[in-house]
C-alpha cells in the first residue's frame, strides 16, 4: 500500500508544481515576460491562505481565494515597471522582488499565529480542509482529487485565454512591441493582466502546498524553486500548456527516480547526491540543446 501512498503524494506535488508551471508558462511562455521571481507569488499565496484560515477562521476555499487575490495584487505591483524596463533588467528585478518577499516574511516575525510562530519559526498546524469528515487513510486521495481540481481549473482558464484573442495578442507582444501597438493594442495593459493572472494562480499553488504540509516557513521559497519551475516549462516546451505539465512531470520524476536509482548504486551517498544534481543540470542543458522548443512544441492554432 505504501507504494500507492507514495504515488499519491508524488502526484499531489506534481499538481501543485503543475499549477506553478502553468502560471509561469502563461507569463513567460505565452506573454514573453521573463519572470524570475515567480516564487514570490507562491510565497504570498501560501502565507495569505495560512493567515486567513488560521487568524480569521475562514473556510479553506476563502483562504485560497484570498491567496488568489493577494498574489494577484502583488503581481500588479511587480508588473508596473515593465512599462519602462527592458526584459533582462526586469528579469533581474523580479529575482530581487522574490527575495524581498522572502526576507519580509523572514524578518517580520509579528506575522504569526501565536508564540513560537512567524518569521523563521514558520507557522505550524495549518488546518487541512475537510479533515474532520474524511478518514485519514483516504485523505491523501481526497487531496489529490482537490489539487487535480484546481489544476484542471487553472488549465481550463489559461487554455481558454491562450486560445482566444487574448492569447493571440500575447503571442504578438512576446516578439515585438511595435506591431500590436500599431494595431491599437494597449500592450502595457496586456502585460499587467498577464502578470496578475499568472501570479494569482501561482498563489493558489502556494495555498494548496501549505494546507497539505500543514506547515510553512520562508525557506520554502528560496530562488531555487523559481529556477526549477523554469526548467519544467523549458523542458516540456515553452508556450504550450501541455508542455508545461509534461515538463513538470519529467522534472519531478527526475528528482524522484534518481532517489530510487541510487539505492542500487554502490557509491557513497555524498558523491551520489552530487552526481544526482549534476545529472539534473546536464539534462536541462541537453534538452535546451537538442530540443530547443522543448519536448512538446508550441501548438499551432489551426482554422
Amino acid at each position, binding site marked *: 500500500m505504501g507504494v500507492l501512498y507514495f504515488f499519491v503524494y508524488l502526484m499531489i506535488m506534481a499538481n501543485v508544481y503543475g499549477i506553478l508551471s502553468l502560471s509561469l508558462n502563461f507569463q513567460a511562455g505565452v506573454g514573453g515576460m521573463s519572470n524570475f521571481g515567480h516564487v514570490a507569488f507562491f510565497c504570498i499565496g501560501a502565507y495569505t491562505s495560512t493567515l486567513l484560515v488560521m487568524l480569521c477562521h475562514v473556510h479553506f476555499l476563502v483562504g485560497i481565494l484570498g491567496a488568489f487575490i493577494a498574489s494577484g495584487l502583488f503581481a500588479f505591483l511587480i508588473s508596473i515597471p515593465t512599462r519602462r524596463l527592458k526584459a533582462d533588467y526586469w528579469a533581474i528585478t523580479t529575482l530581487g522582488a522574490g527575495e524581498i518577499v522572502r526576507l519580509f516574511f523572514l524578518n517580520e516575525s509579528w506575522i504569526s499565529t501565536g508564540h*513560537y510562530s512567524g518569521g523563521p519559526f514558520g507557522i*505550524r498546524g495549518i488546518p487541512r480542509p475537510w479533515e474532520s469528515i474524511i478518514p485519514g487513510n483516504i485523505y491523501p486521495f481526497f487531496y489529490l482529487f482537490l489539487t487535480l481540481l484546481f489544476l484542471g481549473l487553472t488549465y481550463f482558464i489559461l487554455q481558454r485565454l491562450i486560445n482566444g484573442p487574448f492569447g493571440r495578442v500575447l503571442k504578438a507582444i512576446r516578439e515585438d512591441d511595435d506591431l500590436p501597438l500599431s494595431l491599437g493594442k494597449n500592450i502595457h495593459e496586456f502585460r499587467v493582466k498577464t502578470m496578475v493572472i499568472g501570479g494569482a494562480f501561482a498563489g493558489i499553488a502556494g495555498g494548496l502546498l501549505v494546507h497539505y*504540509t500543514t506547515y510553512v516557513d520562508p525557506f520554502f521559497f*528560496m530562488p*531555487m524553486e523559481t529556477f526549477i519551475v523554469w526548467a519544467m516549462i523549458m523542458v516540456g516546451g515553452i508556450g504550450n500548456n501541455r508542455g508545461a505539465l509534461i515538463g513538470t512531470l519529467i522534472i519531478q520524476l527526475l528528482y524522484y527516480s534518481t532517489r*530510487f536509482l541510487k539505492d542500487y548504486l554502490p557509491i557513497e551517498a555524498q558523491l551520489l547526491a552530487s552526481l544526482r544534481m549534476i545529472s539534473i543540470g546536464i539534462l536541462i542543458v541537453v534538452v535546451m540543446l537538442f530540443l530547443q522548443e522543448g519536448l512538446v512544441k508550441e501548438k499551432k492554432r489551426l482554422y
Partner: protein
Amino acid sequence: MKQTNFFGLVLFFASLVIISLFVASGAIQAKEPVKIGAIIPITGTSEVEGQDMSRGLQIALDEINTAGGVLGRSLEVIVEDTETRPKSGLDAVHKLIDINKVPVILGGYFSSVSLPTGNYSNSQGVVQLTWSTSPALRKVGPFFFGICGTDELMAANTVKFAIEDARAKRFGIIVDNSAYGLGVLEFSKREIKKAGGEIVAEVKYEREKADYRPELQRVFAQKPEVVVGTLIGKDARTIFKQAYELGLKPQSGWYLSWISLATAPSIPETVEGVKGLIGRLKGKAANRFNEMYQEKYGAPPQTVWGHYIYDAVWLTALAINFANSPEPKAIKDALFKVAPVYRGVSGGGDKTFNADGMQKYEVYQRMVCKNGKLVIYQK
C-alpha cells in the same frame, strides 16, 4: 497526431514510475539488515554541515556493525539528500516511509525540513530523531525526538553567566536569523531587562554570506561590554575571522549559548577566550569522536553536526536492542530508557529526553575556548 504524442508521453512516464516503484518495493522485501533512514542536507545551503553529518553517520555505523549490529543483524542506513529544500526533504521522508518502510528516520537539520517531515513521520507512527534546533519542534508529537538543545533557558543562563562573570551592563546581541536564533534573542533580551542591563545592539545575521563586516560594525558601534547570542557553523567561522581582522572584541568578552556550535568550525586564534555554555558535561567522548574522525578522514570535523548524528545512530541502535524489536512503537519507548545512561559525544554528552522527547538539562556547563579547545571555565 498531436494527441497521440501527448498521451503517449504521459503513458510512458506513468508506466516508468509505476514499474520503478514496484521494483523498488519488491527489492525491499528481502530483509537481511535492519534498515533505518536518514535525511541529510548533502547539497544546498547546508552542505558543509551535511558533509560532517554523512561522516559522523558512517563512523557510528562502522562502530555499531563491528560491535555486532542490532538484533544480531547488521544496521543499514538509507541516506537521502534534502538539498536543504523543504520540498525535497518531504520527498525523501515520503520515500523512506512509504517505500523503504523504515522504523526510524534520523535528521532534519533545518527546522524548515524537520518540522514538515516530522509532521509526516509522526502521523505515520515512525520515529524521527532530529538535531534541528527550533523551539517549535516540541509540539510535533510523541514519535518526534530532539537531540540538540532547543532550550532557550540556556540563553537566559548565558546572560547570567555574563553578568556574574563580567558584571556586564551594556550588551550587544548577535544571533543567527533562524528559529533557534530568535528564541535565543528573545530569552536573552528578557533576562537582560530583568537584570537592569542595557541592550546597545541587536543583530540578526543571514546565513551563507561572505561578508559580515556590516553586521559586526552594528554590534560594536555602541561599544558593548559583552556580546551574547549564538553563532552557528561556517558563518561563525567567517564572523570570528572578520571580527579578528577588524580588531573588534567586546571589552569583557563573548558569551555564547551552545558555544561548541560556534567555536568548532572557527579558526582557533580567532576564538581564543570566547566563553559560553553547553549542556551538562558527561565524559570526554567529544574528543574521542574527533580522534576517530581525524583518523578516518585525515582532518578534524569542521562542525559539530557529525557528533549529533553519531549520537542519533547510537541511540537508535541501543533503543532497537533494548526493545528487542525494530518496531517504531517499541523503539520510541526504549529511547526514553537508553538516553539517560548513554554518554554522547555531542553537546555536553548528556542526551536525556524530557517528556516531550526534547533534551532536558538540569545543569549548564560554563566553558571557555583555549587554544582551539573547549575547557571548563574557572574564574
